[in-house]
C-alpha cells in the first residue's frame, strides 16, 4: 500500500505552482482515513480527521516538486528551459522528460557529442542555458503544443531496489506525504481526540510559500513538519544519518524543544529507532513558515533519510516512513492524554 502510493504519486507531476492538476491521487489515498478535504487559497490540500476535543494538530509535508519551465522554443523543435526550484544542471544530462503542454509529450535532454566539445569545455560546470529539451518535432509543430511557461519534469518510473528501498523522482517530499498517510491509517485504528489536519502543502521548493496560508487557515496548536533529510552516502561524513535507521529528529531554534523532547521520549518508550541532526537556524522546510504563523506555532521536524536529493533517483527506505508514521500516531495518542499546555509551557 505504502509502496503503491509512492509509485503512483511519484510518477505524476506536482511542480511548484502546478499542484492543482493531480490532486485526485491524494484524495484517492487520504479519503478513506479522513473526514473532509479543504483547500486554502494557495491550493494546499488539507485533509481533516475530526476529533472529539478542540485541539488542532497539523501535519505538514509538501506535495510540490522541483521541475523545469520552458523559456524559449528554438529552431529544430528544441526547448530552452529554466528550473523551478533548485536543480543541479549536471543531473539533467541524458534524461528523458515529459513536457506538460497542450498534451503531454516526450522529450530528451541531450548533450553535444565529445567530438564537438573541447576537453576544456567538458570540464566547465554545466549551466541550464547549455541544455536543451529535444522534442523531435519541428519548431512550428512544437509551438502548437508547448508555450513559454509550459512545465516539464524528468520522466522516471519508480524503481524497487533491494529490501524495502525504492528510488524515484519527487520522493522529496512525497516520502513526507506518505508518512502522513501512514499516520492517518494508524490513527483511524487507534482513534484520536485531537483534530488532525494532514496538509499537503504547495510551493515549498520555491520558498515555503504554501505553508504560510495553510498554517494561517488551520491555526493549529502544534505542527509536525515532515521532510526528507540527507541520507548517508560514501561522499558524506561518517556521522550522517543513514537509511533504515528511523526518522531524523531536528534540534535547533525553529523547533519547540519541549515538544521535540516529548517526541523523543515516546519513541524511546515504544522502541522506535531515531536519529538526530542539528539545524541551528534556517531549515529550508515548512517549519520556516509554520513556526511564525499567527501568534506562533510550536513545531517539530522529522525527516526521512534520503539519498541523492533533487535528482530523479532519490532513494529512501520504506521502513523509515512506516516507523515515522507509527511513531507520530503514538505521539498524538499520548498527547491526547496529556496536558499539552503543561508540555509547552516555558
Amino acid at each position, binding site marked *: 500500500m505504502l509502496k503503491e502510493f509512492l509509485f503512483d504519486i511519484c510518477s505524476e507531476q506536482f511542480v511548484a505552482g502546478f499542484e492543482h492538476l493531480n490532486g485526485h491521487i491524494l484524495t484517492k489515498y487520504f479519503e478513506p482515513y479522513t473526514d473532509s478535504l479543504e483547500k486554502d487559497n494557495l491550493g494546499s490540500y488539507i485533509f481533516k480527521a475530526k476529533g472529539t476535543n478542540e485541539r488542532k494538530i497539523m501535519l505538514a509535508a509538501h506535495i510540490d516538486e522541483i521541475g523545469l519551465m520552458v523559456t524559449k522554443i528554438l529552431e529544430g523543435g528544441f526547448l530552452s528551459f529554466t528550473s523551478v526550484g533548485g536543480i543541479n544542471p549536471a543531473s539533467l544530462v541524458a534524461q528523458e522528460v515529459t513536457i506538460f503542454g497542450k498534451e503531454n509529450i516526450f522529450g530528451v535532454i541531450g548533450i553535444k557529442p565529445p567530438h564537438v566539445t573541447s576537453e576544456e569545455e567538458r570540464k566547465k560546470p554545466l549551466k541550464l542555458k547549455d541544455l536543451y529539451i529535444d522534442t523531435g518535432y519541428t519548431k512550428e509543430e512544437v509551438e502548437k503544443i508547448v508555450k513559454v511557461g509550459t512545465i516539464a519534469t524528468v520522466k522516471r518510473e519508480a524503481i524497487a531496489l533491494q529490501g524495502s528501498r525504492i528510488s524515484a523522482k519527487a520522493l522529496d517530499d512525497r516520502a513526507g506525504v506518505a508518512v502522513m498517510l501512514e499516520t492517518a491509517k494508524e490513527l483511524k485504528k487507534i482513534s484520536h481526540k485531537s483534530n488532525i489536519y494532514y496538509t499537503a502543502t504547495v510551493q515549498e521548493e520555491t520558498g515555503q510559500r504554501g505553508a504560510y496560508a495553510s498554517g494561517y487557515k488551520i491555526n493549529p496548536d502544534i505542527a509536525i513538519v515532515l521532510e526528507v533529510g540527507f541520507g548517508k552516502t*560514501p561522499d558524506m561524513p561518517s556521522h550522517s544519518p543513514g537509511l533504515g535507521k528511523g526518522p531524523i529528529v531536528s534540534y535547533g531554534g525553529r523547533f519547540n524543544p519541549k515538544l521535540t523532547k516529548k517526541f523523543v521520549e515516546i519513541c524511546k518508550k515504544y522502541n522506535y529507532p531515531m536519529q538526530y541532526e542539528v539545524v541551528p537556524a534556517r531549515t529550508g522546510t515548512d517549519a520556516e513558515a509554520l513556526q511564525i504563523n499567527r501568534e506562533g506555532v510550536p513545531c517539530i521536524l522529522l525527516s526521512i533519510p534520503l539519498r541523492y536529493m533533487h535528482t530523479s533517483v532519490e532513494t529512501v*527506505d520504506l521502513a523509515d516512513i512506516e516507523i515515522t508514521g507509527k511513531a507520530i500516531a503514538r505521539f498524538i495518542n499520548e498527547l491526547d492524554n496529556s496536558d499539552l499546555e503543561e508540555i509547552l509551557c516555558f
Partner: protein
Amino acid sequence: MFLKELTELSGVAGCEYEVRDYIKSKLREIGCEFYVDKLGNVIAHNKGRKNKTIMVAAHMDEVGLIVKHIDSDGFIKFDAVGGIDQRVLNSKAVLIGENKIAGVIGSKAVHLMTQEERGKSLPIDKLYIDIGSTSKEETEKLVSVGDYVSFKSDYVEFGNNLIKAKALDDRAGCSVILELLSMKLDADFYGVFTVMEEVGLRGAVTAAYQLEPDFGLVLEGTVCADMPEVEDHNKSTIIGKGAALSLMDNTTVYDIDIVRNIAKIAEEKNIQYQYRTSSAGGNDAGVIHKSKEGAKVMSISVPCRYIHSPVSVASKDDYNNVVKLAKEIILESQKGE
C-alpha cells in the same frame, strides 16, 4: 524492424549473450544458415547469385559499465566499457548482471555542493551504484566483480517518426541486417553480427579473416550533432536527412569511387542520403579493410543524436533509407557483368 526488441536487450561489449541469442532465434525463424565463431560473432549466409564475396557487418555490443569493486557499505564501484562520456552518468537507472539487479547512480544533493561543484560532472572513479543493499555481504550475494552493467532505457517512439533507446549504436545495424536476410534476395552475402566493436573492433578482425570478403559493408549508428549552437560544418550528420555515407573516419579512408558510386545508386533509386562530414570515430570497417590482402569497404549509418548515452535518438526514416540503400548495394554488387 527489430529495434524495440534489440535495444531493450543488454549486450555490453564482451557480454553479448542476450543479443546473440535473440539474433540466433530470429535467424532460425527466417530460415537462414549461420554459425557462431570462436569469438562469438554470428555469421549468417544468404545464398544467391554471386559475383564477389560480400560481408555486411554490424556490431552486437554496446557501451556500458563493469563492476570493479564492492565497498564496505555495499555500494558498487565501476569502470566504463567503451567510450562513455562521464557527463551522461549522473542520476541514471542501471541493470546489473544476468539477473538484472536494479540500481541507481546517484549524485550528491545540490544543497550540499559548493558553488564550484554545481554543474560539474564527476569522474567515473567518484561515482557508484546503489542497489539498496544495507551491507557488503548483501551486495555480494547479488553482484560480483566482473558483472556487466547496462543502462535501463526502454524503446520510445516520439516526435516526427523518431525513436529514443539505448544501444542504437549498433542495434540499428543489427536490425538492418536481419531485415536484409529476411528479404531472401537472390544475391549472395554474409550477414555478420560482430562482438566487441566498442572496445577496439575485435570481433570484426576474426570474422573478416574467415570470410575473406572482396567488399565489406558496415552498417552503423553514427554521431549526429545537429543541435542548437553547433555550427553546420560540425554537425557530422543531420537527423531525418537520410542514410549517412562515410568519407573518412579515425579508422578508415573510404575509397572515393565506391562512395560516389553508392551516392549514384541512392540518387537513381530515390533513396535519401547525406555525407557523414566528421572524421571522428571509427568502426569495424577499420579492421575489415586491412584483413589479409585487404578489402574494399563502405560504411552506411543511421544518424544518432546523443550516441553512447542511455537516450540515443534516431529517425525511423533514416533507418529505412539505410535498409533500402544496403539492399540496392548488395543487388548491384552481385548483378555481374
